[in-house]
């Protein structure tokens, strides 16, 4: 499973804001994780420590910002859109993130 992240925008770049330039993308591995495929929306459970590692290395403010910034999750070469993310915590520590993914329209 790969989390696809767009490169930071270029400041004061009208081309990007007008849709004339597209950002570069970076794929970051999410592991360990479990993927449950369903008809309309799928679910991806990702280890809390794996997400925190990505948040730290890419200097995001939080996991929520990370998932909101991401273009989606690549599963077997198919890009799924992240609809929502939920953190499950115990003793004040997040041990798993649940991502609700939308199956791409074909």
């Amino acid at each position, binding site marked *: 499973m790969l989390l696809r992240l767009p490169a930071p925008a270029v400041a004061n770049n009208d081309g990007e*804001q007008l849709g*004339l330039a597209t*950002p570069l993308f970076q794929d970051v591995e999410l592991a360990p994780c479990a993927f449950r495929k369903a008809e309309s929306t799928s679910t991806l459970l990702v280890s809390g420590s794996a997400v925190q590692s990505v948040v730290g290395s890419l200097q995001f403010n939080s996991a929520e910002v990370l998932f909101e910034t991401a273009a989606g999750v690549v599963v077997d070469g198919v890009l799924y859109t992240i609809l*929502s993310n939920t953190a499950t915590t115990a003793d004040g520590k997040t041990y798993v993130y649940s991502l609700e993914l939308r199956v791409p329209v074909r």
Partner: protein
Amino acid sequence: MQNAKDTFYEVLRSRIAAANPERTIVLRGVTRPGVLVEENELVSTVTTPDCFRLRWVDANVDAENAMPVATLTCEVFYETAGTAGNAGMDRGRLLATMDAEIVGALSSAPQTAIKQNYAALATGGSATAMSTNIWWCDVVLGPLVVKADRIARAAKVTVMSCEEEGEL
């Protein structure tokens, strides 16, 4: 029609930024004026509050005239949850501020601008002024919509432009 859409966005963005320089958003790590065109951004399920989101809906071209006239409808969506420090109890006031900003930006004279062609930006060039203008009607504010802890509104404005040779 694309040049008219691009020009309208640039005009609205600069007017909003001039009226309220603090109306900003952080998008992909960069702070910019709080105006965006949905179709020009990455697909996202997250709705950014406290900014103006432009969505182009209807488009018509009247080809009867010597120079075809394009009529485009732009919906401007905006919403706010208020400020956390005030427990969101100022969301009505903040939405009223946004109402005033969008009405001020679009209803103040001139309601016209020289149409620009931004295509050269894709190859590192700069925008070029075209021969005709775009112009727009007064903005019409839609009803207030309650969305969980946010209140939202959609404003609608009609933008017109003469289509020059090579634009259609």
